[in-house]
């Protein structure tokens, strides 16, 4: 599903060159739930961003669904992300000015869907995360766990094949974190969605199919 070959990421300033990722090669199968662990600053999020085509590697190849992505234009990249990928962020990144339903509809705005269809799909996604009774609320009126569930609904509303989650339970207490993890596990199990999750939490990581560990930009496990 996702194939990374010799991925390197170098950050350059005028005086310093920092190697954030060092020759990472990774194959992630369709329907796999993979977690990435490692200490802060080891390159986990950078790797996830590169997988999600939000950032570009300095060297190496990425293939998603057997498609090479290095030659895609801005518009094609945007379309690719919209069709194939869903994102969940640690700090939710909901748009506070929009109601829950509008936030969840967001990925569908960039597709040819009617307003009616959008509403139906967004309501369906919110039902899956148990928040169909909060569609008119604004994000600031929700708890952290509820916000993350809205973010999950937004990530799955377009039925992407892959979900990339960057510390989805990082801002939540353990009970809330477990709830979110349950939703992700069910999503992977019932819908066959491929999930890649960055986490600091060993317990959460052990609930996934495979664990990859990074240290100083290199894969150690």
């Amino acid at each position, binding site marked *: 599903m996702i194939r990374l070959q010799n991925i390197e990421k170098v950050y350059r300033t005028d005086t310093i060159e920092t190697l954030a990722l060092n020759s990472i090669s990774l194959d992630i199968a369709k329907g796999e739930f993979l977690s990435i662990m490692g200490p802060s600053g080891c390159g986990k999020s950078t790797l996830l961003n590169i997988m999600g085509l939000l950032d570009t590697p300095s060297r190496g190849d990425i293939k998603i669904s057997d498609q090479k992505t290095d030659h895609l234009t801005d518009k094609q990249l945007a379309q690719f992300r919209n069709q194939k990928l869903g994102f969940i962020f640690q700090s939710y990144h909901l748009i506070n000015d929009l109601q829950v339903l509008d936030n969840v509809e967001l990925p569908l*705005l*960039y597709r040819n869907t009617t307003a009616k269809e959008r509403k139906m799909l967004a309501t369906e996604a919110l039902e899956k995360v148990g928040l169909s009774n909060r569609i008119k609320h604004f994000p600031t009126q929700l708890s952290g766990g509820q916000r993350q569930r809205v973010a999950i609904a937004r990530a799955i509303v377009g039925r992407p094949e892959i979900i990339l989650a960057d510390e989805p339970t990082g801002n939540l207490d353990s009970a809330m974190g477990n709830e979110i993890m349950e939703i992700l596990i069910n999503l992977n199990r019932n819908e066959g969605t491929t999930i890649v999750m960055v986490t600091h939490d060993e317990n959460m990581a052990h609930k996934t199919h495979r664990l990859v560990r990074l240290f100083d930009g290199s894969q150690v496990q």
Partner: protein
Amino acid sequence: MLKNYFKIAIAVLRRRKFFTFISLFGISLTLTVLMVLTAFIEKVTNPVYPGDKNSRSLYIKRLTYTSKKGWINSGGSSFYFLTHYAGSLKTPVKMAIVSRNTSSNAYVNNKKIVIDIKYTNADLWNIANYQFIEGKSFTPDQINKADRVAVISERTRNEYFGDAVTVVGKYIEADNISYRITGVIKNVPEIEEVFYANMFLPYTVAKSDYRNKDFWGDYSAILLSPSEQMVTKMRTEYEQMVTRIPIPDNMKKDFDTLHSDADTYFETFTRGFFGNADNVGYVRFLLFMSLFVLLFMLLPTVNLVNVNITRIMERSSEIGVRKAFGASSKTLVYQFITENIILTILGGIIGVILTIVILQVINSSGLIPDLDLNINPLVLLYSLLACLFFGLLSGVYPAWRMSRLNVVTALKAQ
């Protein structure tokens, strides 16, 4: 999509109320000034009352002598010049000859009334559509006989005789001469120089002798062509005729060329302010107006660009999210420009309301007597265009900057 943009735009406006106030204030004030100015220029350059045949008319206002040494001498035309030369043209079906206004004082109950007098021939009443409140115009026969008859304006009637009085047949005194009133017309704004007067008299009763053969004088002419299509032909015929007019002997010593132009009403305005004998001033007028509008709009635009950039930085997380979920840079540029146009349209609506209020105040203040400024479809159209222009001008750069934000950087910024 648009609904979503609208929701966001409104939410962003409500988030920082002071910024919103500054932005809307800048936009609405700028548009108000432009709309009031447009309404004024529209009235000056395209009078509807009484000049309703402007599309078929040409105006001869100035007569200019020039010399190769660079000397220029300019003035109005004489009655003789206009009847003798312009009157010989084949194309015009009518030719009104009207004098410049001269002020005269009249006294009613020890109160001084200033009356602006215009001398005219009979064709003025055929070319201009004056609305008679009572009576009618004086006749060609009365003009030929130099009868002391007058058509007065409603304002002069009210000032001289008091309101709601029938005055046809009564006498009005100006410069110690009594004139019998034949009709009263609805007031004409003072800015419509060719058509405006408080009192119209036959040219035959003017103090200056209309038979004087000097070319310079106090008169202008309005030529009426049989159709709009014939206006160009009428202009060409006049231009050709002017080249054949011999320079009078008393002018030959100092000047070698005579200029006189038959202009449209609008051109008389542009030539007067922006042109000269050789140049109608149309391009200069357009350049001047464009430059003025551009400079005038520049300040609020720069302000809006600044406010917009600040707002963008506040919204970097949203930009990151939108990009992550499938918005291309181009889509984001559209979104931001749309939001900005929504803001400027809001400013425009406030501007239109302000303009209506200000025009009402100007109209009722009597600052320019009998002026009836209003917002017509043309002014509204200009305003709408100004809004769009404003929105685009102040939105494009911030939108471009926003769309260039790197997703990861944008997401980290929160």
